[in-house]
């Protein structure tokens, strides 16, 4: 069948116009669905909490997971983030000093560090890292994954824990650094590393948990992972409601189930 060219062209425009019309309502609706930026150790726990929030209130949030340090830079640059759940409270304090936040926020959880040994690894699941020390010299260890200690909170604590165990110097040639703790967990379980220090909350998630075995590192081996959340200036009512929801028993129970220690005082 012969179709005149201008008609095909017209049809193309109709399709484009239709697509635009379909998109417009979504742009409008996005206004009251705030962006919540969260440290990657919250990946599974916060998804569950957000689902519970939507069930209870009928409102929803958009979750973005990544490195706390990255979010800190993005918020400082004016990113449209309304609520920030950091894995390190120092980053929140820094933003507060720059006048980016609404108040000082609130401590919502204390993270824990865990030794993750993937299935098939020749390493033993030894919380004292004694077997890791032996593996450094007997050739069993080839790569060991941690988050980047330069900027990732879990990386800093992993470095402290390895320093406490007296292994930091010796393990250098074996380290592979994840950009954030979720990538460190992916590296640790990829089959190319024999283990890693990752977030206990990630190790307890079903997806990562079935890839190997994890054990808690003693809390006294590193400074605590005090995780603070804060509303960013200009946050809307949905972000405020979610912030309040995360301090309620229902959300706290979820955090606890994923292995976070709950802050006792309301600071």
């Amino acid at each position, binding site marked *: 069948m012969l179709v005149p060219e201008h008609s095909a062209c017209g049809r193309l425009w109709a399709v484009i116009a239709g697509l635009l019309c379909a998109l417009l309502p979504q742009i409008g609706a996005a206004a009251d669905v705030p962006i919540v930026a969260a440290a990657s150790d919250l990946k599974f726990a916060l998804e569950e909490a957000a689902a519970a929030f939507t069930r209870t209130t009928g409102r929803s949030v958009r979750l973005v997971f990544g490195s706390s*340090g990255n979010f800190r830079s993005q918020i400082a640059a004016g990113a449209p983030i309304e609520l920030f759940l950091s894995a390190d409270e120092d980053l929140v304090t820094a933003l507060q000093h720059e006048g980016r936040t609404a108040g000082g926020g609130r401590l919502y959880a204390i993270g824990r560090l865990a030794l993750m040994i993937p299935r098939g690894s020749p390493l033993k699941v030894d919380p004292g890292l004694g077997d890791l020390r032996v593996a450094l010299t007997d050739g069993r260890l080839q*790569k060991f994954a941690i988050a980047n200690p*330069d900027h990732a909170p879990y990386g800093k604590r992993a470095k402290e824990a390895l320093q406490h165990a007296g292994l930091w110097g010796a393990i250098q040639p074996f380290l*592979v*650094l994840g*950009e954030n703790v979720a990538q460190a967990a992916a590296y640790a379980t990829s*089959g*190319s590393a024999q283990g890693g220090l990752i977030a206990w909350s990630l190790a307890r998630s079903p997806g990562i948990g079935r890839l190997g075995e994890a054990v808690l590192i003693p809390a006294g081996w590193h400074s605590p992972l005090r995780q603070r959340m804060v509303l960013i200036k200009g946050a809307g009512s949905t972000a405020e409601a979610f912030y309040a929801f995360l301090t309620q028993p229902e959300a706290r129970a979820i955090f606890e189930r994923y292995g976070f220690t709950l802050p006792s005082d309301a600071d």
Partner: protein
Amino acid sequence: MDWQALSLSLKLSTWTVIVLLPAGLLLARELAWRRFRGKNLIEATLSLPLVLPPTVLGYYLLVAMGGNAPVGRWYQQWSGHPLVFSFEGLLIASLIFNMPFAVPPMQRALETIPKEMREAAAVCGLSPWRIFRLVELPLAWNGILTAAVLTFAHTLGEFGVVLMVGGSIPGETRTIAIAIYDRVQAFDRDAANSMAALLLALSFVAIVVAQLGGGYLSRRHDR
């Protein structure tokens, strides 16, 4: 400024050019002068990294070079260390994602050499090697230079694939592009600034060199 990261990036770029250029040139000759079934398919595959998200390539490389895959396992047994999180792994990734920057410019340059000219050289009794050296190489020189410069600069700037398979190991896989990302995350603006400015300058110089070489980019505009 992270000098170690810069020198690693320069090393990776240099090795990529050294390995990819001769291999790419052989491939470009086949593609330029031969007609065969599946040629379109090969050309499409070579161009694929141009449109493929680096994360897709990074993911497949992470899987293929890992200890659970045949290639990764074989390499680990042979060399004693895993292919992911190593310089060799980055080099392999780099060779793949630079295909579209290396092969097409050389292929275009070779296509402009008339068949009669090569036949005349052969009739004059020149060996294939001397035809290559005295006829093809001088005439395709612009395309080869463009391929080298683009490959070098593109490797310097590659980020996504390196982020996924590298592991940010200082001196091994922490390239300058990754170092910039790390510095921004650590809110170290000074270091990020100086490294970003350096990469900007290097990339600009590379593009100018490629254009002055009368290469692929400018010639496309002339047509």
